[in-house]
């Protein structure tokens, strides 16, 4: 299984919105916010099938995600806004205006390191 470096961009998705307002503790919401959109060729480089699991790490934290092939540029990864993505960001990544770098944080993706189920927001190793 390979590793790729690139930029992570947080985005809205229709399903994330629809599930967020239904139940933030429900499985569909957690599944959606743990689904990474990534280019087919990047997937192949990671040695993953569509839907495969990966670990995503920034300097601030690490999460487990599902990878979904999408029409995205290579090297750019897209994850819905939410508590899963937020592990990768930090209050210290905010610039002068007080906005964290939600639209571009350097990450590495490593294929195949996910557990059977993606980590939910309540399962992260927080103090």
């Amino acid at each position, binding site marked *: 299984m390979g590793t790729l470096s690139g930029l992570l961009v947080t985005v*809205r998705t*229709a399903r994330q*919105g629809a599930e967020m307002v239904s139940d*933030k503790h429900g499985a569909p919401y957690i599944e959606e916010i743990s689904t990474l959109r990534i280019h087919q060729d990047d997937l192949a480089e990671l040695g993953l099938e569509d839907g495969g699991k990966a670990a995503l790490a920034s300097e601030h934290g690490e999460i487990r995600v599902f990878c979904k092939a999408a029409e995205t540029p290579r090297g750019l990864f897209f994850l819905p806004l939410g508590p899963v993505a937020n592990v990768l960001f930090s209050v210290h990544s905010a610039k002068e205006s007080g906005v964290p770098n939600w639209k571009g944080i350097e990450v590495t993706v490593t294929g195949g390191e996910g557990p059977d189920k993606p980590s939910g927001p309540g399962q992260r190793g927080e103090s």
Partner: protein
Amino acid sequence: MTTHDNVVCTFCGCLCDDLEVDVEDNAIKAVRKACLIGKNKIMNALSHAPAIRVNGREASLGAAVEEAARILGEAKNPLVYGMSSTTSEAQREMVDIAEMIRANLDNPSSYCHGPGVLARQQAGLVTCTLGEAKNRADLVIYWGCNPVEAHMRHLTRYSLQPKGLYTPEGRKDRKVVAIDIRQTPTTKRADLFLQVTPGHTFEIASVLRALVNGLEPEFQDGREEVAGVPMESWRRVVEMIKACKYGVLFFGLGVTQCRNTDINVEQVSRLVQDANKHVRFSALAMRGHGNVNGCNQVMTWQTGFPLAVNFSRGFPRHNPGEYSVVPMLARQEVDAALIVATDPGAHLPADAVRFLKTIPVIHLDPHENLTTPWATVVIPVAPVGVAAAGTFYRMDNVPLRVKKMVESPHPSDEDVLKAIKEKIRHVAHT
């Protein structure tokens, strides 16, 4: 069964006001005309309400209000935060409380569309109500936004398809441009899609300004491209701008959260001002939370500033980046927080949430969310627009009254905040 017509959806800044909702035995039975998100939001409005809790134990409303007032009254540097999904009536109470306890006051726009608000301080914004887009826009530009997924009815009600007064053919009467870093369901609807490399909003706006003003940029390296897109395409966009009668540019978080944040929007705003030398042109921010614009409005008329205000000296001081919520939590200076109608557990960086867990947090929300499990005082409230009425401000500043259709066992944000305020006042006087 009662059917409520002309119901206003409270989810996003579109505030669609044509919904039909069936109510029977104080329960929502059906929602029509809404988008999927709006429908789910209303159908689930009364479900998953948290119990009233103090320190994790169930408590009475009176005890929770009393504890909230005690925490806020004793705090030395509290944070009053949120407001983006409640009524302006509740927001007005939030500002009053913040003043009273000399708190820091902020709303989620400080890390979303706040940079656009700051740009309005620097340059102003030429804008219009959504009906002008519907009735007049023969050129629509979507820049860094994806309304098909985030503002689902925006295209049909306001910007792309509607048949307006001077756009009788709807979509056919409009040219549509999309600028984004990836293909989205929205960019697929455009006549011209410019897929740009990330992080170059300022350069793009600058080059468009130059072209609108008749200047040709020079390229030292001979590569005639900006943000990975050839100049030819940018020239084409400017030709479309100059050829239209009434253009409207919709910008999203892709513009405001791109590196340089506020100066991006300032440059976009200047571009729109420049375009008005040739044609009529407006820009509109695609505001997310239903009443996040209301937070900016209420804070502005009561404190003079749309976000990031500090009351420690008794009068409002404004310094984004200092009194904005994220840097404030980074410095770990606040010692208590009142958080209403937003869910920091879901929206803020993980280390911000970790810090919030170390201080007393009072949280009002209609639902169990990712803040309720750990907040010190949890008070469930009636969902606005379903079980509580009040005012919401649409993304274009049009204020609408959201309605009460069913009874909730819980009071509204506004009522709880009033009770907390009275309690703080009472404690201060005795």
